[in-house]
């Protein structure tokens, strides 16, 4: 039953027009190995895997399976050769059941082309039992949590008898606990003979699970490493220069409290209390980080402060003035800087130039406004100085913001928000989908803003980022504030609080049942854990 398979990529080159996404990449995946491809967003990892999976045709180079050259004209060929892939954005039809999704493309049929879903259900049950997946074959995929959807993707590959499983950024959408479960599943798969190509830029996970690490930077293999290598070493290979993974920030010097939220409640359109009676305050010169699993009310909390939510009650005081009930413009004029969680949707106008994006909330004021017109010269002047100050890598100030990389887009948003005197700075997911080099820079800017005496509120689902930046940590769960704990609080306590346990219970629990996270080694605190969207 154990058909082993050795996979070799030789000199794979893939170019899109003038852009060289993969440049003569050589990778060998030995049977029964977890091989990690480590690289930043945009380094070319996904392109390489899409070539391997037959979705792209390589410009040059060849793929060898058990030393035989093969060519894939489509994913069908790759699957037939024993390669399965779990994409970063799941390839599941939301309105289909699990069984239908698994059957698709490799349907068991009765005579006349009629579907035999019972056969598929049986196969799902088999795999589900073997790996302890607990997946209901008749559940609609759209009703399943992300972690379970991912298992459906894995089942899809296994049903097709995949010997090499490609996992493209599989942990991007998972909670810390789901991530740990996935790493366990990967180890199980390995021990049953499946090779895994694990694509990631999260150093902790890579070190925890890989047998060998290949580092890719700007489309080229820059070296390979063993999981024993230090995080700093891996990070500098990945980025191409020495990066400091720990932020040296001076201890906070909190001054008077100027921002206060009292009993804030936000009611969602469906009647749920999405933010439920939250009270907290932030002093000048202090960073409060709001932690929690995605979707526990963080988005609505920040939007309520900015005036973007409709049904809000309670009180939001900034410098003694009530913000609740005011328009967004008034809130901005009161000195609130806001970095929204999704820069592409709320932070930028992708088709506008960088220069225009840099004055999106300042356009109507001097010096940018001139009577009813605008002053393009001033806008450009402002853009050039911001681009320099924030080290935005853009061809010019006139380039469309949407064409920049994630990190540079985020720098544009941050530059705009920090370019006026602030009384409060809110940043939601400030480094999601941002490369390691930029994360470092953005974090420094946030701390610098704190040090000028602005109260700062950070919302992040990345625990590492929270622990990195926070002077105090507030944890949200189901719209309620579980508690506010000091900066030095441990990872496992925070993890439990994110699951709804009060700080005291969480402390007690971690004392009794260590270790809570099945971690293989001490947790390195690193920036490299930043978001990885797109």
């Amino acid at each position, binding site marked *: 039953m154990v058909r082993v398979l050795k996979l070799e990529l030789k000199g794979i080159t893939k170019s899109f027009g003038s852009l060289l996404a993969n440049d003569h990449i050589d990778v060998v995946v030995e049977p029964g190995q977890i091989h990690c491809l480590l690289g930043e967003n945009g380094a070319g990892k996904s392109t390489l895997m899409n070539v391997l999976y037959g979705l792209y045709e390589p410009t040059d180079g060849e793929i060898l399976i058990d030393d035989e050259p093969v060519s894939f004209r489509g994913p069908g060929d790759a699957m037939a050769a024993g390669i399965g892939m779990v994409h970063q954005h799941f*390839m599941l039809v939301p309105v289909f059941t699990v069984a239908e999704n698994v059957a*698709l493309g490799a349907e068991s049929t009765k005579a006349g082309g009629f579907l035999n879903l019972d056969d598929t259900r049986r196969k799902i049950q088999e795999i589900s039992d073997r790996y302890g997946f607990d997946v209901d074959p008749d559940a609609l995929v759209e009703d399943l949590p992300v972690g*379970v959807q991912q298992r459906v993707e894995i089942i899809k590959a296994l049903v097709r008898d995949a010997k090499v499983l490609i996992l493209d950024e599989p942990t991007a959408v998972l909670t810390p606990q789901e991530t740990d479960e996935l790493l366990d599943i990967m180890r199980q798969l390995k021990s049953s003979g499946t090779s895994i190509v694990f694509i990631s830029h999260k150093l902790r996970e890579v070190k925890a699970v890989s047998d060998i690490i290949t580092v890719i930077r700007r489309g080229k293999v820059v070296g390979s490493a063993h999981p024993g290598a230090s995080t700093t070493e891996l990070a500098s290979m990945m980025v191409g220069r020495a990066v400091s993974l720990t932020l040296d920030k001076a201890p906070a010097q909190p001054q008077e409290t100027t921002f206060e939220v009292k009993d804030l409640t936000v009611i969602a359109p469906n009647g749920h209390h999405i933010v439920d009676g939250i009270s907290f305050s932030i002093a000048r010169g202090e960073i409060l980080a709001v932690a929690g699993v995605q979707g526990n009310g963080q988005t609505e909390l920040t939007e309520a402060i900015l005036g973007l939510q409709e049904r809000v009650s309670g009180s939001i005081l900034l410098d003694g003035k009530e913000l609740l009930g005011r328009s967004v413009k008034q809130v901005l004029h009161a000195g609130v800087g806001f970095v929204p969680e999704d820069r592409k949707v709320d932070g930028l106008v992708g088709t506008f130039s960088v220069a225009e994006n840099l004055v999106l909330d300042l356009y109507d004021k001097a010096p940018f406004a001139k009577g009813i017109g605008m002053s393009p010269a001033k806008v450009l002047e402002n853009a050039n100085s911001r681009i320099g100050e924030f080290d935005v890598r853009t061809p010019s100030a006139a380039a469309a913001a949407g064409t920049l990389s994630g990190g540079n887009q985020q720098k544009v948003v941050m530059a705009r928000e920090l370019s006026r005197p602030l009384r409060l700075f809110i940043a939601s997911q400030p480094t999601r989908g941002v490369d390691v080099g930029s994360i470092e820079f953005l974090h420094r800017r946030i701390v610098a803003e704190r040090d000028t005496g602005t109260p700062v509120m950070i919302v992040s689902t990345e625990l590492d980022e929270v622990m990195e930046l926070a002077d105090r940590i507030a944890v949200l769960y189901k719209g309620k504030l579980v508690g506010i704990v000091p900066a030095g609080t441990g990872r496992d306590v925070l993890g439990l609080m994110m699951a709804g346990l009060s700080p005291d219970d969480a402390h007690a629990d971690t004392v009794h049942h260590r270790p809570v996270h099945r971690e293989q080694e001490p947790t390195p605190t690193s920036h490299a854990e930043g978001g990885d969207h797109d």
Partner: protein
Amino acid sequence: MSTTSTSPLPGKPDAPQQAGERVQAASAKPVTWKTPVLLTALGIVAFIFFGLMGPNQTARFGLSSSGDFFQLPALEVPAFLGGIILSVLMLGLAGYAVYLKTKDQAAPRWVPVTFIVLFVAAFLIWVVGGARTPSISLAGLIAGSVTLAVPLVFGSLSGVLCERVGVVNIAIEGQLLGGAFTAALVASMTRSPFLGLLAAAVAGAVVSMVLALFSIKYLVNQIIVGVVLNVLVSGLTGFLFNTVMQADKATFNSPDQLPIIDIPVLSSIPVIGPILFKQSVVGYLMYIAVIVVWVGLFKTKWGLRVRAVGEHPQAADTMGIKVNTTRFWNVTLGGAIAGIGGSFFTLVAIDSFTEEISGGRGFIALAALIFGRWNPIGAFFASLLFGFADNLQSIVTIIGTPVPSQFMAMLPYLVTVLAVAGLVGRSRPPAASGIPYVKG
């Protein structure tokens, strides 16, 4: 696909001991006031017009025709009393929907469906009771509705096939018209209505292929291609009609009719006999097509792939399914089906082609497809409803109602608007419908 969605639901509880715990499907969609309010309003309208202002005659509905092998007595309903009773029942249903809403529950689907049935019944009693001759043949009414629904059913099946695979087919009208024209032409020239039928399917498929080519290969906006095709087919058939058909009517525009196949005994069952067992070839084909398309879409490998392509083409592609090829042939098949529907006009209903013979039924078919929730069987019943409205307006005009005939003529379209506005719950089109697929 983004984790940045502002989901109104709290994230799932992440107690560390949970290993793959299934989350309670708490996807509570917000319950709106739309259905309760709409039902209440219609209920009040019914109570006032059909009840309080109802006519005093007795409405008589004939159930059997003289040829049936057993006779059912005619249904006689005192119009005033019937109106009152039915509208009170309707208000009851509306009240139930309001009650459910106050408990934050959506009304189950049978509530609006029953409501519609009651409303139609009350409307019938009111119209017939107020007529000069308060008597109508229900069997005839229903049989006529089915007849008028035939092209609609074929048209909406064509729409189902196209949209399920991700292409919006606005060109149904053009496919019907093309089918009608070609059927007449070929049947006249060959003196064989069956060859005409075949030619109609080919004509519909050709119109569809143009749609498929431009929308799938050249990524032209599907709505625009569809509209342009309708105008093109209308112009082309109009031109050929005036230049060729009119010049020599006997050779080019006098198609032999498809025979009506009467299955003995069964066809004389009252009410359902004529509908099911006394149809033209096209009529029988309609029932077969509905069943085949339904079974095909939901029970076969082909259907699973088709639906996947229409919902999430990328997922289908990564599973080795050729998205654009699947789309092309499905759209072509849809066109062929609509073409057969078009042949109904010239080979069954009327014995010659005239300009614009399809008269906008392609668009009604589009509405039927939405009302039928992209499901062949739903589309069938929706088409029947539209056919019923269409037939009703002509019959009630004949028996002489107090309502002006122009208002009656508006009936099918009024039903269309109400239906498409989402009277029966929220309809969800295939996710990728109308979006071209480009690899990468």
